[in-house]
């Protein structure tokens, strides 16, 4: 449900502004308006003085430097000390920014050389395979390098004809004592190796430079006399780099552990100080006072007033003011649900929040989602497996992890899965009723036929399953319209109220008609019920036609379609039943001997596991979809605004 919100106004003399903002920031109970809207007063927007603007810039620059430093270091094992954070926050902001800058400078002198060296090693490690591949292209070109100097070249294929001119020039320079061999590197490049007497080295290199021919350049530390030696150097370097990187990482990790908590504390304090500075532009001022307007949960008003009185003094006034209907419409929505339903806020977070003052359906989702999930999966054994895995994961995962809510939803859903599994008589599909229970009865000497499900067998009574699914849908949609009427009442939208009430009456009339056609009523009641149903149907259609023109009548078919959409509960359930059948059939293929049983169990386990995995995703998605599309479409007013209180960031 949504918490009642209060519109508040805080007024005080300007000398109290810093302490007021500090207290409100620490309490985190009030959402300050983007623009001040005080009751009964005209105020100007507070603007920052030049000194405050300068401070803001310095804080932002220091935060950026701390961010950069944190990103260059690995994550620290320890988190920031809470007392250290509070002490920093109490410091004068100028001193805070200056002190933090000095510390960042000191750390930077230690970290930057390490980070730079790390980048160089990473780049070298990435380049080594490229050098090796290029050298390997040249290696076959040289059979007997002897005492000759070799120069590897890369030439664009389009300049191939220049090779002939190069040959002629080399012939002149080296007095026929040279060798050129070529090989294709790729479609654009030719590898050329020139081997010559080292006596002609300078003239050859001059020629190559004049012709603008690219030599294959290697880092100085890799260049050796011969390509084979160069290859060996590359391989040696490839082996050595990981060890160097590991040593660097250890140094950086040690620095992170030593400095990390301090940096995190600085980061936290600086950001909070910056927030207190930035929020000032949302406040109003007169000649001597400041004004803060905003929203807070009604339950926090008294505690906030007391805290302000205690920390700021009696000169500050905080009062609740009456909100206009338009203001109420834009009030933030804060959900407050019982612990079990709170887990389902995970799904509600996917949608825009409900408009303030309307229905929050989280509790209803907490009721129906597990029922739909259980109805679809409907197997005792599957439910036990999902329950066990969910409970295990809850214990193993971090309690603050977002997955915890989803896992708790699965726990609830698996309980309904077990309940429906008992009603449908399913334990790994029909394995329980067809194999396990008769064998158990046989061992115990109980002479009894095959056990019957408590309710009905899904695989055999498909029509019953469909009827039950449609009935569940009708109930859910009916409830949706009731909530729609309630929402329309809360928002005083009379047209919507009449429309939704009309749809309710129409659904009820259709329900009565179905009862008369299904033959479940005594014959004496048939005619009266039919008459009532007819009158209600006609009346509701007339009302809908008047209130909504033709749109409402079209909406009737949409509503019937929405109800029929719940057939998916049956359809996906049947697919689960028959997948389990397939798993059981395949498991029995291997025969009745011991080895056959073992193989059969393994095969069955694989397919049942697949069915369970599908059975977790598919029912969840479809249950969620039925809520979001069919159910919420009847009442959910999604124009709400999330509550963003002026609150300090959580401690790192």
């Amino acid at each position, binding site marked *: 449900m949504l918490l009642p919100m209060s519109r508040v106004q805080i007024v005080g003399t300007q000398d109290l502004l810093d302490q007021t903002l500090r207290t409100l920031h620490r309490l985190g109970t009030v959402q300050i308006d983007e623009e001040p809207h005080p009751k009964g007063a005209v105020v100007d927007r507070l603007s920052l003085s030049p000194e405050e603007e300068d401070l803001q810039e310095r804080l932002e620059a220091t935060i950026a430097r701390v961010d950069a430093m944190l990103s260059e270091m690995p994550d620290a094992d320890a988190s920031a000390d809470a007392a250290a954070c509070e002490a920093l926050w109490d410091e004068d902001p100028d001193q805070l920014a200056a002190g933090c800058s000095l510390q960042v400078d000191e750390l930077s002198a230690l970290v930057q050389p390490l980070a730079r060296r790390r980048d160089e090693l990473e780049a070298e490690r990435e380049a080594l395979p490229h050098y090796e591949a290029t050298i390997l292209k040249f290696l076959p070109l040289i059979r007997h390098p002897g005492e000759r100097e070799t120069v590897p070249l890369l030439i664009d294929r389009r300049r191939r004809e220049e090779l002939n001119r190069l040959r002629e020039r080399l012939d002149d320079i080296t007095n026929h004592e040279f060798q050129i061999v070529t090989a294709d590197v790729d479609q654009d490049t030719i590898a050329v190796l020139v081997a010559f007497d080292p006596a002609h080295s300078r003239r050859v290199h001059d020629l190559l430079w004049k012709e603008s021919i690219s030599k294959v350049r290697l880092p100085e530390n890799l260049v050796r006399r011969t390509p084979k030696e160069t290859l060996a150097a590359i391989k040696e370097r490839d082996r050595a780099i990981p060890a160097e990187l590991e040593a660097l990482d250890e140094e950086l990790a040690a620095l992170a552990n030593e400095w990390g908590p301090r940096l995190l504390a600085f980061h936290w304090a600086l950001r909070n100080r910056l927030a207190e500075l930035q929020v000032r532009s949302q406040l109003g001022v007169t000649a001597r006072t400041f004004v803060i307007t905003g929203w807070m949960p009604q339950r926090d008003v008294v505690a906030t007033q007391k805290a302000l009185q205690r920390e700021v003094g009696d000169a500050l006034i905080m009062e609740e003011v009456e909100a206009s209907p338009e203001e109420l419409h834009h009030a933030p929505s804060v959900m407050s649900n019982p612990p079990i339903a709170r887990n389902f806020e995970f799904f509600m977070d996917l949608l825009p929040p409900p408009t303030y003052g309307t229905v929050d359906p989280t509790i209803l989702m907490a009721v129906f989602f597990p029922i739909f999930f259980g109805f679809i999966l409907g197997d005792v054994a599957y439910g036990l497996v999902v329950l066990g895995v969910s409970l295990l994961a809850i214990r193993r995962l971090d309690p603050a992890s977002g997955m915890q809510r989803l896992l708790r939803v699965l726990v609830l859903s698996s309980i309904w899965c077990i309940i429906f599994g008992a009603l449908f008589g399913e334990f790994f599909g029909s394995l329980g009723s067809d194999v396990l229970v008769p064998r158990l009865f046989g061992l115990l000497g109980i002479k009894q036929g095959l056990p019957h499900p408590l309710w009905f067998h899904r695989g055999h009574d498909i029509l019953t399953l*469909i009827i039950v699914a449609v009935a569940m849908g009708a109930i859910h949609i009916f409830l949706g319209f009731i909530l729609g009427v309630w929402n329309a009442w809360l928002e005083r939208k009379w047209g919507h109220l009449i429309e939704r009430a009309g749809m309710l009456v129409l659904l009820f009339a259709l329900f009565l008609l179905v009862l008369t056609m299904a033959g479940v009523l005594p014959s004496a009641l048939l005619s009266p019920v039919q008459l009532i149903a007819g009158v209600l149907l006609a009346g509701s259609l007339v009302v809908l036609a008047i209130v909504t023109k033709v749109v409402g009548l079209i909406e009737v078919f949409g509503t019937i379609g929405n109800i029929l959409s719940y057939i998916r509960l049956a359809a996906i359930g049947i697919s689960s039943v028959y997948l389990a059948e397939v798993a059981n059939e395949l498991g029995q293929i291997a025969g009745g001997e011991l080895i056959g049983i073992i193989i059969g169990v393994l095969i069955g386990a694989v397919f049942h596991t697949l069915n369970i995995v599908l059975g977790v995703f598919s029912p969840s998605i479809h249950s969620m*979809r039925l809520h*979001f599309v069919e159910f919420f479409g009847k009442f959910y007013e999604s124009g709400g605004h999330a509550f963003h209180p002026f609150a300090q960031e959580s401690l790192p």
Partner: protein
Amino acid sequence: MDFGMLAFAAAVAVGLTGLATAWAQSKIGPAMAGTIAERPEMVGIAIILIAIPETMVILGFAVAAIIMFVLPTLAMPVAH
């Protein structure tokens, strides 16, 4: 009533509506993926828009169920 013809009719009912749903969702899915990439707050509306065409295949299943389970009972002669 020939059971094979009933089964074929049921298969056509589900198959064609399944194709239609898949075609509709193949258009909506990539568009919604792009929308969510730029505006993550639209994920709820995206789920709703992607889910809307599913009604077609569910109604196809309903027709198939009627074909398989209701039509044969209607075709059976009534004993007097």
